[in-house]
């Protein structure tokens, strides 16, 4: 039954191993903040938030696993109608890279190309539009991923 999903299993197992190891080795002992606390919103051009968020994250997650394998990524959404932006930052343990179709036939795709493909500006249209809080309706949006912190050991997975 699981013979044909080996690749998928390997990634899940790795995730499981790393998260469990992280749990065991984490030295942060204070219980997580209550859920009622709202996540702060920042402007797009504000340079500090990713850093402060990252500091808070590393304070909460202090283990060799977090130090070596965890990185931080930011996702920027911009409404194409009014220009309103929204950024969210999140930690990642591995990057799931899309494999781009090479321009010319027979050209080899490098890992860097996959990374570029991941960080490419993306347009959200129709079905998966972003609900813009200023326009109060679904608008065409551009989405950009940015890596703020690279871990010393980066785990990548090719989609």
């Amino acid at each position, binding site marked *: 039954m*699981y013979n044909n999903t080996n690749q998928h299993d390997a990634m*899940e197992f790795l995730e499981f191993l790393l998260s469990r190891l992280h749990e*065991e080795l984490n030295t942060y002992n204070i219980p997580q903040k209550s859920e009622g606390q709202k996540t702060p919103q920042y402007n797009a051009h504000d340079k500090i938030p990713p850093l402060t968020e990252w500091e808070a994250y590393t304070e909460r997650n202090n283990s060799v696993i977090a130090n070596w394998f965890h990185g931080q990524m930011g996702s920027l959404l911009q409404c194409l109608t009014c220009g309103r932006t929204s950024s969210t930052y999140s930690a990642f343990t591995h990057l799931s890279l899309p494999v781009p179709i090479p321009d010319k036939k027979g050209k080899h795709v490098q890992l860097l190309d996959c990374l570029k493909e991941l960080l490419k500006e993306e347009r959200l249209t129709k079905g998966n539009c972003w609900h813009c809080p200023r326009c109060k309706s679904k608008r065409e949006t551009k989405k950009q991923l940015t890596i703020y912190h690279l871990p010393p*050991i980066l785990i990548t997975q090719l989609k």
Partner: protein
Amino acid sequence: MVIAGRQRSPLYSYITTFLVREGHNWETPVLHFFCGDESRKDCHPSTLMSSLIAQLVGYYEFDLSTNQELLNPIPEKTTELSNLFKNLINQLPEDISLWIAIDGITYLGNEFNKDETSLVIQTLCKITQATNKSIRILFVAPSQGNSVFEVFGGHTIREEMKDVPKGSWGVLNVGRGAFEIPDRGRAMLDKPRTIKRFTRSLPDLHRGESTLARSEAVKDYWKVLRMKNLERRHTPVVLKEDLTSDKPLPITQWWPTGNSTSVKGEPRWQVPPFQSLGILGTGTTGLIRQNNICYMNAVIQYLSGIIPLSEYLLKGNYKTPLTNNIPTRVSSPALSTVLAYTLRGIWSGDYSVFNQEKLRVYSICSLEYKYIKAYYFTEYYCPVENNV
């Protein structure tokens, strides 16, 4: 209880299979062993015991920090295995119910294994009596023509069984021809009976390891390969003597542990030159593959190739996480312990093939890992559906 018939019949296996599957529906764990499945000659009472232990460990999460036996090499003798099984049963909470179904116990009872088989039967019978837990055992066996079954005496109780109170077990005699099932039914039942249920039992792994290790040719091949690789492989900087040390050793500072430097815009870390001192083996140790856990082995090999992580675990630093005296959220670093054990096997250079069963045992223990669970259930509980 014992079900006994005069003749071998697929019906008996059917009863066992049925019980195993129904037990799953009622959420009652059923430890089971189909003796007839193992057509090999080395089917032994110890195989039965270790299979039961492996299944028990799969059902209940035992604390590995207090159960040092689970971390030690698996004992080979039936007596040791029986004691281990008894200990584990004693640790279970009082309100559990557990079934043990053993099919064709007479397969084990040839003249060499007679005593050990009796021991196994007695151990199991005493377990049901010694505790208040609701543990029920079903032996399915033909009643005649085998010396082991004389333990039950067929109808009279033997000397050894006098410790076990009467009434705790009984023999149900199934007359010849009472339940004849047509050949078609048998054809369906034959498949689950031929499934390798034993692949999960622990001695099988030992057997695989010893078979591979015995072959001198293989050994030499690995030796040559190791020597070739020694010069270009990076290895963790750990002395071999240190592997047995109990105390955590200072680790190489691969990267700064804090992230304070990043605020000032300086690089958060610098890649240190990997050191290839070759003090340990080259880490080219194979892992035994059991069924389809190759993806796990791939991940473990991958992790062992991350030199800093290997070194961290090999040097035992998980025992005292980075800042001393601050307790971690998880009380015992169980996974780190078993992973370190596996990495030790990989890096020590003493093995050509290493048996990572401890990691597996742990994975099975933590039922939160859904794939293990699903895998476990598919193999054990739906044999008929899988094959029809």
